[in-house]
């Protein structure tokens, strides 16, 4: 039987607020263990939470950016369970009345198609600390509570996702959005953007859901995709064997590329959610929402659309450029300083991304600034250098950080665009290659390319290619036979 995979994703994104959600401690990553703690986030007896309103602003931002309803009144709830990294033995979260509901994210697929993935809810909560287990000769476990109380947004999607490709596209777009909004680093490897996947399968065409497994421990987009594909295969195999899929939580094992059962439905925690009596219901005024709306930046989908219309870029190129707003900004700086935006896009997507990927750095760390790349492209447009020379100039810009004009000057790379200078060189090429000249004359006109190449080589690549073509057509003898095309 053919099955359809049904996927819903739960994403936790860590917010970049200065202080924690319910106390004044810093959220900075990487401090010595337990140095960013106070009685509140240590869960000392008698302490009370005080809401950091900046967290609410972040949640409103994401809610508006994903077309959610921002609820004017929402509640805090306690999620109760015991674990050493959870100081109060409950996590302050939202349960019955989350801050945002009923939104969507539009994700671009490889095919160029756009899929709309519904959002069930977005809610605010506090992060837990971390258990640290001792090294081989140390049988102690330690608790670091620096992360306890760092604000999180949990974004729960509808089961609208049908493949690992869609899941990846959704996650990438969601990550772009939180980064555009400046509310989160969105870094999966560092744990500031975490994902759990609910995966089930059903016969193609069915409209009832199958039993789902929740897969945890997915630390990269690749793991998410692999785990979904594995889970779909595993469940199909079970059904093929006449067995049932059980509702359970499973852990992804990266090394083995498999999921393993962690706990069954029966063993699932009863979190005993109830409204937190230490916090009053959160009332959000219309003014607050509107003030946040006024600060929203242009979002990926809108920017992508604008790049297509304003710069005439192919949708795929636009999609790649807007994945990071830093890359998009870089492109716009270059495009604004040169004649042809399309050429700017080609350089950014081609040469620049190749270098960044090779160096393993982001566009913010690029060794070539947008203004410098624009200056290089302008040299091409002014016909000072050829596109080919420009590529080697770009390599030197990466290596030395020098301005393109300086490199062109120092290395004598200025394009030869003077016909009187080129004619003797072309004549010399003819003299050096009598056989080819004869063949051309005999009708083998395909040899035009050979003469262009020889002339370019003779000028060290500095000749203006258009001019070389024009001069060659003037100077080459008229073929005596029709082109053989062979």
């Amino acid at each position: 039987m053919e099955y359809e995979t049904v996927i819903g994703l739960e994403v936790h994104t860590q917010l970049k607020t200065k202080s924690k959600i319910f106390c004044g401690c810093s959220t900075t990553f990487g401090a010595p263990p337990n140095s960013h703690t106070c009685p509140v986030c240590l869960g000392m007896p008698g302490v009370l939470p005080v809401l950091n309103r900046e967290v609410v602003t972040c949640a409103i931002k994401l809610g508006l950016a994903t077309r959610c309803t921002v609820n004017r009144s929402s509640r805090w709830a306690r999620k109760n369970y015991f674990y050493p990294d959870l100081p109060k033995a409950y996590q302050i979260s939202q349960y019955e009345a989350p801050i945002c509901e009923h939104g969507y994210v539009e994700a671009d697929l490889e095919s160029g198609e756009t899929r709309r993935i519904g959002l069930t809810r977005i809610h605010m909560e506090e992060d837990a600390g971390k258990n640290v287990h001792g090294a081989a000769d140390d049988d102690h476990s330690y608790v670091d509570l620096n992360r306890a109380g760092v604000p999180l947004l949990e974004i729960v999607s509808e089961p609208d996702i049908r493949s690992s490709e869609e899941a990846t596209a959704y996650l990438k777009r969601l990550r772009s959005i939180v980064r555009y909004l400046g509310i989160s680093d969105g870094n999966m490897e560092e744990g500031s953007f975490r994902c759990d996947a609910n995966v089930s399968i059903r016969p193609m065409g069915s409209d009832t859901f199958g039993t789902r497994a929740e897969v945890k421990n997915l630390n990269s987009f690749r793991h998410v995709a692999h785990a979904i594909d594995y889970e779909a295969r595993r469940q199909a195999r079970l059904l093929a064997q006449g067995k049932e899929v059980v509702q359970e939580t499973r852990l992804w094992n990266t090394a083995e590329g498999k999921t393993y059962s962690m706990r069954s439905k029966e063993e699932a925690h009863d979190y005993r959610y109830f409204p937190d009596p230490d916090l009053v219901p959160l009332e959000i005024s219309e003014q607050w929402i509107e003030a946040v709306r006024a600060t929203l930046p242009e979002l990926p989908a809108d920017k992508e659309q604008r790049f297509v219309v304003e710069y005439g870029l192919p949708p795929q190129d636009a999609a790649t450029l807007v994945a990071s707003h830093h890359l998009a900004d870089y492109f716009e700086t270059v495009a604004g300083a040169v004649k042809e935006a399309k050429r700017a896009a080609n350089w950014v997507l081609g040469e620049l991304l190749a270098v960044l990927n090779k160096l393993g750095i982001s566009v913010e760390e690029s060794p070539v600034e947008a203004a410098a790349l624009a200056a290089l492209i302008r040299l091409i447009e002014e016909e000072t250098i050829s596109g080919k020379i420009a590529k080697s100039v770009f390599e030197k810009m990466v290596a030395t950080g020098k301005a393109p004009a300086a490199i062109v000057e120092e290395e004598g790379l200025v394009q030869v665009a003077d016909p009187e200078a080129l004619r003797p060189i072309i004549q010399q090429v003819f003299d050096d290659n009598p056989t080819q000249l004869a063949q051309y004359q005999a009708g083998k006109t395909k040899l035009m390319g050979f003469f262009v190449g020889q002339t370019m080589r003779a000028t060290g690549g500095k000749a203006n290619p258009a001019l070389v073509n024009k001069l060659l057509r003037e100077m080459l003898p008229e073929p005596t036979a029709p082109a053989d095309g062979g």
Partner: protein
Amino acid sequence: MAADSDLARLTLHEARDRVTAGEVTSAELTEACVARIEEVEGSVHAFAHRTTDEALAQAAARDAARPDPLPPLWGLPIAVKDNICTQGLPTTCGSKLLANFRPVYDSFVARRLEEAGAVILGKANMDEFAMGSSCENSALGPTHNPHDLERVPGGSSGGSAAAVAADECLAALGSDTGGSIRQPACFCGVVGLKPTYGRVSRNGLVAFASSLDQIGPLTKDARDAALLLGVIAGHDPDDSTSACQPVPNYEAALEAEVAGLTIGIPKEYFGGGLDPAVEEAVRAAIATYESLGATTVEVSLPHTEQAVATYYLVATAEASSNLGRFDGIRYGVRQEGKDLLDVYKRTREEGFGAEVKRRIMLGTFALSAGYYDAYYGKAMAVRTLIRNDFDAAFGQCDLLLTPTAPTPPFRLGEKLDDPLTMYLSDIFTIAVSLAGLPAVSFPTGTTAAGLPLGAQLIGRHFDEARLLAMVHAFEATGQGRPLPAL
């Protein structure tokens, strides 16, 4: 220096006046209380922890400083219930689990006491985590009623009430969740005020039931309660449930007229099970107020019968969550175990007393999946009905007068094995807590055997000033607190 033990018999305001006038020093007052503690503490056991050395040092410092104007409690020795965090001083909540606990921070009220210049004599004994009505549930042993050492002082603030009644301090702070200030005040023959929920910050009060807990004064008369409440009341930005309501001058408001007021008498509070001596004393108090020009009207609080059940669902549900943090990981007495679960189980098994365990189990059950709606959910709904009862009653009268407890103080051990009967000793105080209203218990004489009797006045939200003025007027008729024969 020989302590003048008569100084310990002073009221708080008498001592304040004498200190202000320079007639007596803080050291003299503190030494008098310490001497009185030495004298009677062996039989009363009102203190969980005495902080005599710190208190004497603090008194000396107060005498040396004397700012102008003199803060309201300058140099006055008082006792603080053992669930109110005092930096560096034991705060054990009458529990074995916190036997070694000294907070690293001061509660809001402890800071207010410090600013007002008070001297902390020690931490008053209490039922473990404020769960109890007799002060017998303390890991440190029971407190005895100063009026009859065979009888309980009430609870959970039994230590605070007994210390005030026995003149071991000039006044005390207690906490009230379902009657824990009012019932012991009644049993020990002192004034005990539970403020409106939100009137006094809960910051630093070790939580039992967060939506009910309030700190309040236990004092020798109404003026003392006004003085102490004035110091601890007010908005605290660190407690989200703290009210922004302005704090009136309670002492100045004491002279307000009784004449013209309408006192509601809830008929449901005078049914079966009410001890005749208690009823007689309340009826006599009604007569006194009528003689002062008040009129009385019978009112109805129809959901009174559901109050105890509602309270024991709401309070235990919150407690089951609030007490989760006592896991032996970060503070408190940890019992080692073979694995993490074993550490949790042994720490809590050893650390908590029977009543605390009973309530944690009850609350955990009330919040469990499948039971939440039937228990916690229903209790919250009834809580609203109870609030509405009071709102309706206050449409007919200015305040309510009821018994504080159904019986005079009972014998130690009498109800210890019968939790349900014990729970019923709070029957007249619980509904007030559920409604978040202010109420005061004040002495109305004694039984023939010399056991204290009391009555309760219940006011509208933030009407503490009127309640204290009423008690003050009653005292002015010559009916002050009974003095123990200790």
